[in-house]
């Protein structure tokens, strides 16, 4: 704040909540938006470069590190970092074998990817709010939102992926008739099928929406509070941001865990053949 004294508090907050958007200007040219209004004018076919960039870097980091550890696994004398990775794998395995009753080699890696990727993306929230945007500003980048999960596009992107998998596995395991029957003949019996369809349909659609909004809401709120704390003078800011950061570590891990658990549960529901 002190370095950006030209901005008012409102502008500062808005600036922090604006993604670096790449899209088509109204005049037909492609480029990076220089203001929130320009970004909005780009419409649907625009990309948040910061969200995509950070999530890609973090996901790649996760995969490369885990791949490296997996390649250099020692069986008799595991080192410290290998132990750490193995404890994560054990944790995922425990959750999957506890909640998922079907047999599908995709589910455990899917849960691992969800958990570690989301935790890494959430962890970006623990960096000082101004650190990366200021560095980017020095490099000439006007906007930078460092927490991908505080962007609904990221969370909805993941939850829609899960939704597609849910429908795919439901139809694959129960058959199209079974899947539709589950929606239409429950909970009230055959004669009430329009009501059933409405209830079950809402229930089905609510899953990806709640999955995405829960994660997004938590991280967005957390980030917003960090931004608000950053508006305080520096000599009092740390006394607020430190406890909030410590508390936020819990949310970072918890949201990753909840997302993963729900993914496992939804996948389990899609694999249950008898109802």
């Amino acid at each position, binding site marked *: 704040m002190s370095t950006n004294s030209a901005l008012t508090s409102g502008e500062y907050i808005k600036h922090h909540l604006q993604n670096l958007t790449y899209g088509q200007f109204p005049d037909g040219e492609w480029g990076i938006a220089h203001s929130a209004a320009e970004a*909005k004018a780009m419409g649907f076919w625009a990309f*948040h470069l910061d969200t995509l960039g950070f999530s890609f870097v973090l996901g790649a980091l996760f995969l490369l590190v*885990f*791949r490296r550890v997996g390649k250099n696994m020692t069986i008799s004398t595991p080192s410290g970092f290998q132990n750490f990775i193995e404890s994560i*794998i054990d944790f995922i395995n425990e959750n999957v074998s506890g909640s998922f009753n079907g047999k599908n080699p995709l589910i455990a890696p899917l849960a691992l*990817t969800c958990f570690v990727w989301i935790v890494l993306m959430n962890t970006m929230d623990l960096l000082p709010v101004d650190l990366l945007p200021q560095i980017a500003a020095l490099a000439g980048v006007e906007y930078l939102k460092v927490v991908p999960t505080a962007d609904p*596009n990221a969370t*909805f992107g993941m939850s829609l992926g899960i939704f597609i998998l849910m429908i795919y596995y439901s139809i694959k395991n129960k058959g199209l008739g079974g899947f539709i029957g589950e929606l239409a003949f429950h909970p009230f019996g055959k004669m009430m099928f329009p009501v059933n369809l409405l209830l079950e349909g809402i229930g089905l659609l609510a899953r990806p929406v709640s999955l995405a909004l829960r994660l997004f809401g938590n991280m967005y709120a957390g980030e917003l509070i960090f931004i608000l704390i950053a508006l305080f003078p520096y000599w009092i800011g740390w006394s607020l941001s430190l406890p909030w950061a410590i508390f936020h570590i819990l949310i970072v891990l918890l949201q990753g865990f909840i997302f993963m658990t729900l993914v496992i549960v939804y996948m389990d529901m899609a694999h249950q053949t008898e109802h």
Partner: protein
Amino acid sequence: MNINATLFGQMIMFAMFTWFCMKFVWPPLVAAMEERKKRIESGLLAAERGLSEHKEAQQKSQEILAASKDQAAEIIANAGRQAATMVEDAKGVAAEQADKIKLNAKAQIEQESKRVKNELKEQVSGLVMQGVSSVLAKEVDARTHQDMLGKLAQTL
């Protein structure tokens, strides 16, 4: 909240990461952990087997030890008995020998005393004859009284 095509980017990225994770990250990690589990299991089994084998061997060695102790005691007892009989035998032999020697000595002594007696008898009779002959030189003719003198000498 502005939803835009970032959504699809994120979805594709998610799918790619999950696929990569399933193909290249998950299997080696889980395989190695599974193998370690197996190795630990077999190691524990081997340790248990070794322990039971050790116990068995200990028992066997104790049995062998006890048997050898018994054997040793028996040998010692036998040897003692043998020694006792040997001593007993030797005693008998020695006593016999001593008796024999004693008898021999007695016989010898008797013989000697007999011989000495005879000698003495002869000497005494010689002396008597001398004395008598010197006393009776005048009255007794040696030749006429030879028989009487011989009888006398024999009775001595």
